């Protein structure tokens, strides 16, 4: 057995720490799990008897639902934990809360938290598997993996493609996970956004940084539009919504300048008419709903892989 057909990690915390072989392994495993969703009985017993807790300390609909369905399709028992009404709102620390959850015999904690590094802290402290479902503006590894999967599904490869990630880069954990994953898989990444939301320091991570979407729109194979995260942005970082759309929105006029066959992505939820216009989001070159479908297969693969490994 070669290095490329094994997985030994107990946690999934970041894409930064995964090798290209490990990423490829997860994507290949996800491909097999996608087949499960085509069956009349869309369920396998791989995680029968295991308990998965979705601990979401931040609002989320699609990621939480996707993890929940993924765990259920693997036959696991799934518990949803939300901060609202829990001991966290009474002042308990994240680690204490997680320790209490783990003490109930949990095998995996899927954690979303507003603090960058929270998943790493839990992985160091607890004995169960930790899957990072988004830690602050740091990483969102399963979103990165599903984006890679969707691109590979569309083009048959990732290597050699040019991918633009556009918008609010500074606040985006998706942008960081995508950047690490795409770079490792051999794509060229161009980050596009206003200087206030895209510091030049991102160049150090190996990306080309540009401040005008028009400058690169004609040369990219994939354009990944990020949601403008109004809840995170300070007013000084952001021009007016109208100005943002004028310079960085994927409008119909701008879309006409794209390469033929360009692939449009968005991690959702979309601000229609701000970062992306509706006719493009719903058009034939949009992969947005495919991203959602593939997210389920990727999360099934991740839950399966981390639970079957006894190492750290």
């Amino acid at each position: 057995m070669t290095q490329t057909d094994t997985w030994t990690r107990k946690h999934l915390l970041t894409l930064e720490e995964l090798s290209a072989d490990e990423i490829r392994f997860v994507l290949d495993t996800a491909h097999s799990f996608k087949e499960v969703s085509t069956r009349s009985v869309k369920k396998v017993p791989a995680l029968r008897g295991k308990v998965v807790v979705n601990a979401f300390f931040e609002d989320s609909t699609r990621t939480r639902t996707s993890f929940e369905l993924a765990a259920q399709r693997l036959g696991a028992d799934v518990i949803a934990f939300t901060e609202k009404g829990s001991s966290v709102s009474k002042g308990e620390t994240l680690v204490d809360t997680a320790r209490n959850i783990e003490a109930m015999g949990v095998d995996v904690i899927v954690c979303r938290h507003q603090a960058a590094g929270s998943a790493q802290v839990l992985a160091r402290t607890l004995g169960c598997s930790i899957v990072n479902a988004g830690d602050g503006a740091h990483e969102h590894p399963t979103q990165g993996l599903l984006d890679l999967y969707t691109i590979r599904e569309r083009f048959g490869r990732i290597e050699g493609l040019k991918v633009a990630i556009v918008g609010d880069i500074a606040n985006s954990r998706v942008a960081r996970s995508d950047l690490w994953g795409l770079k490792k898989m051999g794509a060229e990444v161009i980050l596009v956004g206003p200087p206030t939301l895209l510091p030049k320091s991102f160049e150090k991570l190996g990306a080309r940084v540009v401040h005008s979407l028009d400058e690169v729109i004609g040369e990219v194979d994939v354009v990944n539009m990020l949601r403008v995260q109004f809840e995170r942005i300070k007013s000084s970082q952001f021009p007016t919504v109208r100005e943002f759309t004028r310079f960085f929105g994927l409008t119909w006029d701008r879309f006409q300048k794209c390469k033929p066959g360009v692939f449009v992505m968005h991690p959702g939820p979309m601000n229609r008419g701000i970062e992306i216009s509706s006719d493009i989001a719903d058009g034939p070159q949009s992969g947005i709903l495919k991203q959602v479908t593939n997210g389920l297969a990727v999360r099934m693969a991740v839950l399966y892989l981390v639970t079957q490994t006894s190492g750290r």
Partner: protein
Amino acid sequence: MHTDYDEADVRRLIEQLASTIAASFPADRPINVVGIRTRGELLAHRLVELLGLKGYGKVGRGTLDITLYRDDLSEIGPRPLVKPTQLAIQVDDVPLLLVDDVLFTGRSIRAALNLLNDFGRPSVIRLAVLVDRGGRELPIQPDFVGVKLADVPKDYRVNVRLKEIDGGDEIVVEKR
């Protein structure tokens, strides 16, 4: 203990297997031949070819990946790649021939039966294996056997090698 079957032996065993199978299923009626990945899948391909030569024209093919149905899933080392199950056939109400290379404890067959159950209800399921090495842990018996090796000790492995992936055909019994 060292029992070897070379390429000619393996070809003869598979041909005998195909003949016994052919005697049990009418050639003009549909049948599905489904192999358990990896070597069961390859044996199933060869059996389908041989059945074709015997006039079987309505043979559906499929491959089962039983990894997710194994009862020792959490005990087997680093994760090998899970591959998809391929059953683009009508499963319901059609006879199904399940094919594997070696029958030992019976646990792989149990997993395969559970997996098949998620796809439909064949009219009948029969089991063909190239080697029955004994040592059953479940009440599962084959219907068609290439060769029966009696009393192979538990610490010995029966390795079926097939030229499609192993470079040549042979059956080797060797110490683990």
